[in-house]
């Protein structure tokens, strides 16, 4: 009955659903990514710690969560924990799953980036009288960031796409809405092609923007407003002198 043309779904009436789904997808991606970065950094620092008692749990964690499918983690946090009385709502369960899974990968990227900053840099900072905290925040971290950026960016785009797995717990994000529209209209091909296109339109500019950021950072462009202002003032002062 629906063989007359590809686009038959009344998209305009589904636009509000898609919009809320889209916002929900971005919400999962943002919360999941921020959480994974923070937790991943903690794991990376633990793995670079001098004590084996600190390194071991972080290493164990990373190995476990790198080798378990994300879908299994989602089911454990949403259905599994519920069965022992810990009921998380879909947003909490979905975000938590993304955080614990991607933190494992990000910790590997951060660990190698932090280890990639040469020990001489710490020594030079120490010789200038910078304390351990100032050395980490102003010397090690900015250089590690440059090393970690390419891998981290790949993970961010991957995480954004992986939010679609949350359809399995009816997380009300883009893919869940797609499934509802498809079941109402019986137009699976059209609906999922459109949804795939929406994911592409989200991810492609994001990855391009991140590449742009990578190039800028590699050239030494300032990332903080304070540093941008400092360089502006320096330029003004130098121009006045010459």
């Amino acid at each position: 009955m629906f063989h007359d043309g590809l686009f038959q779904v009344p998209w305009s009436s589904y636009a509000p659903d898609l919009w809320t789904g889209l916002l929900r997808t971005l919400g999962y991606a943002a919360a999941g990514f921020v959480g994974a970065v923070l937790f991943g950094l903690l794991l990376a620092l633990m793995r670079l710690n001098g004590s084996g008692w600190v390194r071991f749990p972080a290493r164990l964690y990373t190995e476990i969560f790198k080798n378990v499918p994300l879908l299994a983690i989602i089911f454990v946090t949403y259905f599994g924990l519920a069965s022992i009385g810990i009921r998380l709502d879909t947003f909490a369960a979905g975000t938590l799953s993304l955080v614990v899974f991607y933190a494992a990968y990000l910790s590997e990227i951060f660990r190698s980036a932090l280890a990639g900053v040469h020990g001489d840099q710490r020594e030079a900072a120490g010789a200038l009288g910078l304390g351990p905290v100032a050395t980490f925040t102003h010397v090690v971290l900015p250089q590690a960031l440059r090393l970690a950026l390419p891998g981290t960016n790949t993970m961010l785009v991957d995480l954004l796409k992986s939010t679609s797995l949350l359809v399995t717990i009816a997380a009300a994000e883009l893919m869940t809405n797609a499934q509802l529209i498809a079941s109402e209209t019986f137009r699976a091909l059209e609906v999922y092609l459109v949804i795939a296109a929406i994911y592409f339109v989200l991810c492609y500019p994001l990855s391009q923007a991140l590449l742009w950021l990578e190039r800028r950072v590699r050239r030494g462009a300032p990332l903080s407003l304070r540093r941008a202002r400092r360089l502006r003032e320096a330029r003004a002062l130098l121009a006045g002198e010459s």
Partner: protein
Amino acid sequence: MSVRDTPVTQTRAAVAITGLVKAFGGRVVLDHVDLTVLDGQIVTIIGQSGGGKSTLLRCVNLLERPDDGIVEILGKPVCAGGRVVCPDLAALRQSVGMVFQRFHLFPHLTALENVMLAQLKATKVGEREALRRSVELLGRVRLSHRALAFPEQMSGGEQQRVAIARALALRPSVLLFDEPTSALDPESTGEVLGVMRELAGDGMTMVIVTHEVPFAREIADHVVFVDGGRVIEEGPPAVVIDRPVQPRTKAFLASFHNGRSA
């Protein structure tokens, strides 16, 4: 202008080291070494590679922790019997500047920011003052025109001069140089030595580990020849370099001169 805040008093020891012992994994690198650097003095440490020169220098600002002996900076003990007794290591490092063989500039920052960083983060110098002083210091090492260049865009000689400006930023009382020209080509070496001569002229207290015997001869008030982890001979350059007494000093200087003529 002068680098120092206090006038030169020839009697005070800027650095006083006695009975310094340092071993790496059972191998003794420094074996009861004494070293005194008076305020305003320029001391050069010469000797074979692996003889303990750099380790000795690195014990002064405790980048290496001595296993035994006493290290005093500006009359205050900072390390004794293998224990750090200095309550504020960061403050010690601020009064002792260091220039490394391979510069170790911060690659993510411009030359100017390299000079500014310690002023902003190790001390509480304000942005404007740090900026003004850093521009001035880059002028002193004749690199005002490279202030906004990144280290990788600069020659070795330029990088080392930035490193010197960076080490001067906190107005240290003593400046340590760890083979500052060993990684440089002859032209860059000349630039860096020129800057060091000017610092010497300003009365800066300096301890210089170097392979440049002619430069050591020219600039030093006091030369220390270190070999096998011990001070073999020390004194004014006219003695240690021109008329050494110890056979090992003679042998080292002879091999150096042969190396030069070959």
